């Protein structure tokens, strides 16, 4: 007998809606969205560097713009998304970078905690350098 396999259509929009019903895909999409904010944040930094190269006046204007309410709100958003991105990344590091010690794997929670500790240490150093 001849075969006639049926291929279920995957229209892009309904595909999206279908997957978004599940929490795991929502979490994933939220994580992907964080990139947009981090991308914009990076662009702002580059703009700041450009302004710096243009001289004092231009840099002061840049800094003043950063203090406007809109810029502050954006940075709060960007910061919380950066937190979310970092935390979700740290949580999967044991999967991506498992470590063996002797006959066994180093526990996942230890790998995660080391990442958090390194994050805290780097943040402190930066705060110290910026503050100095």
């Amino acid at each position, binding site marked *: 007998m001849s075969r006639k396999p049926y*291929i279920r259509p*995957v229209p*892009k929009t309904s595909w999206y809606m279908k997957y978004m019903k599940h929490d795991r895909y929502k979490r994933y999409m939220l994580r992907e969205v964080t990139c947009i904010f981090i991308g914009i944040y990076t662009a702002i930094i580059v703009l700041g560097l450009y302004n710096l190269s243009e001289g004092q006046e231009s840099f002061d204007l840049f800094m003043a713009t950063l203090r406007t309410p809109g810029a502050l709100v954006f940075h709060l958003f960007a910061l919380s998304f950066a937190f979310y991105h970092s935390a979700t990344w740290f949580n999967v590091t044991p999967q991506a970078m498992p470590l063996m010690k002797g006959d066994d794997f180093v526990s996942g929670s230890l790998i995660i905690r080391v990442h958090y500790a390194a994050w805290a240490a780097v943040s402190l150093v930066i705060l110290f350098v910026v503050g100095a």
Partner: protein
Amino acid sequence: MSETRTIKIEILRYRPEIDSSPVLQSYRVPCPQEWVVLDALDYIKNNIDSSLSYRWSCHMAVCGSCGVMVNGEPMLACKTFLREMGDTVRVEPLLNFPIERDLVVVIDDFLENLKSLKPYIIRKTEKPVEEGTHLQTHAQLKRFKQYTLCINCLLCYAACPQYALNTNFIGPSALALAHRYNLDSRDEGYAMRQEIVASPEGVWECSFVGACSEVCPKHVDPASAVQQMKITSTKDYFLRFLGGKR
């Protein structure tokens, strides 16, 4: 003793000789405490409708043939208890695969991909039998053991949104099995497998949604294998510029 509850099972059926597209069909089945979805399918086939087609073999989560969508989630029919479900249970063929008939899907692509990754130990030169077996330490075994547990049930493919969009993607379990052999201290086939692993249809199709690992009934964690292979593939890429090789 109280009477056995009965539930409605809705099955997405496709009979290529009469259906132009799949249709839902409902059956009323009893639902004793110890029944799994596969028991209900057996009940339907034996008592109500012998034309129903589905795959199974071991009835104990070992053979990997009974993967279906249960209420939208990829599950093993033999490991999914009905007592944990409501009064209506929807059973569909595994998502992202063509339907051959009823709950039977076409897995030819997967088998081809798996074959192309050479999921067996490859040696550059075989060790003569007189020299004895290849010994392995506990640590060497532990490194890849979890990836040997895969039963090829393909639930991970049904959960993967990247595979849904691009069925050319080699996919989670085939890649996890390639990783299993790459990690094996007796194997020397890394470079051969890498041609496919590091190709555009290989690990780089994966965006680490992680759904494969969440649905895997054997805790293989294919997502971890794929991420580790991304790291080694990236290292290879840069080492090439330094004239080194792995």
